[in-house]
């Protein structure tokens, strides 16, 4: 009897947990994501106020970049940096992460915004993601070399590494063609 009361209590707790969660954060332009973008910009750059303008979608989708949103960060009517929210695959789901660039498209911040699957979320570690911060736009990221492995999260580690390499390659190409 006691066991059942305990289980009933747990069941009710789970139900209330499940109903309490914030509104869906599904799309890349949701309130939650926009809030995260603003927070990241404020903590990385010292802009007092800024606005975001959506960039033209010039990058092609790939297995490692299922979808994305790309913005100019405008301060006093001039772009001062760029921010991208990208969707990449985990083993059985997908995740959203943020890339913050300066005007030379050097990576200033990487943050995993939404990770849904139970395994592989270790890539959200701030310390691990700091390996992608760039001093040089030509450098590429190599899993196991300048990007360390995380045991138990190999698929997602490879996925985000490939995703960032793909984005950087594409940006370099567009830059060389003076398209961005």
């Amino acid at each position: 009897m006691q066991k059942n009361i305990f289980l009933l209590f747990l069941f009710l707790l789970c139900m209330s947990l499940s109903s309490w969660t914030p509104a869906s954060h599904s799309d890349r332009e949701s309130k939650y994501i926009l809030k995260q973008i603003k927070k990241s910009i404020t903590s990385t750059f010292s802009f007092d106020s800024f606005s975001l303008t959506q960039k033209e979608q010039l990058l092609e989708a790939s297995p490692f970049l299922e979808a994305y949103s790309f913005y100019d960060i405008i301060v006093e009517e001039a772009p001062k940096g760029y921010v991208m929210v990208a969707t990449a695959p985990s083993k059985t789901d997908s995740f959203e992460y943020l890339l913050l660039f300066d005007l030379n498209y050097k990576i200033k911040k990487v943050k995993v915004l939404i990770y849904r699957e139970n395994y592989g979320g270790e890539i959200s570690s701030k310390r691990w993601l700091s390996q992608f911060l760039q001093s040089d736009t030509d450098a590429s990221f190599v899993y196991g070399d300048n990007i360390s492995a995380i045991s138990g999260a190999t698929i997602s580690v490879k996925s985000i590494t490939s995703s960032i390499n793909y984005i950087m390659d594409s940006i370099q190409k567009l830059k060389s063609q003076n398209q961005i």
Partner: protein
Amino acid sequence: MRNIVTIALMGISLNLFGQNMSLQDSLQINSNQRILKNLAGLPQGITLGGYGEILYNNPENLNSELDVQRLVLLFGYKFDERVQFVTEIEFEHVKEVYVEQAFVNYNLTQGLNLRAGLMLVPMGIINEFHEPTIFNGVERPSLDKYIIPTTWREIGMGLSGRLNGISARYQAYLFNGFLSHNGENGLLKGSNGLRSGRQKGAESTMNHINFAGKFDFYGIRGLRLGLSGYQGKTQAVDGQNEIPGSEIGISMLGLDARYAYRKFSARGQYLRASLHDTDLYNELTGRDLGSELMGYYLEAAYNVLPFNKKQRLVGFVRYENFNTHHEVGSLISKNEAFHRKEWTLGFSYHIAPGAVYKIDYQTKSTAISNSKKGQFNMGVGVWF
């Protein structure tokens, strides 16, 4: 002789001059991409995958065994942004069918999941991470059979979360426990500890809730540390559970570490389980269950191929020492045959990410003198 021929054949098939891989290629080759390709023709939300291992074991002076040890098919369905169902259907030795996992994952908030269903107990490394391409050795470490009864899964519910600021992950679950008495016999015994008591979610009986938890830290690059705990009581069927000695208490603690840097990797694990009331249980059932199980293993591995190759040829050595009679109650004496020591030396040849040929040689001995025996193993494994 037969082994020499098979080694030679395997050697011929080793393509050590596997294609040089440019960075561009490395972007293309990844199990994810194959999953996505497989999915292109499927309705949205469905995931397909699986793993399998087909093994050849040749114990010294005995016939060899060839076995499709396990073939596991993974299906996933994503209902919406937050809710996903994942299941793994396992075929063991071709003819036995099990459900290895079947749970609903509810993404509550960023970094916190509520999970319920048939799940893996988070204890040590292999029980949660057991796909053949992610461990060395044809067979899983024996410690993960005799002390941790891999694949250990029961029905339960709990939370799994991450702390991104300190690079840590935590899991806390309530599970059904082992069945120690089915009304006729005691199921737990000295030779394999808790292994025979797994209920695996099949018409399982419960009168005590058990707790399992794990804390993982991965804040040091390349290193992952784990601390696992399990606390609870075994179950006995109705009627039987009134009889003293039908149930025992279990406290288990596990420490594990995994390290990887470029071509080198290493892992280790230490396990200790205290079983309570084993004297009463042994008296009732006539079994020889120990009161303490203990074991550890250490493994070092090195990829001998150049770092920029697509393929990896990993040589490894592993030492295991474990004892299901580390301590015994007053009614039985320690059986030295249950204190096992194993060396495993071999290669894992990863011909593609997700496909591996394995070969190794094991020496197995116990605390009894002159008990050393050899075993030669080969296998193929896939994970996609």
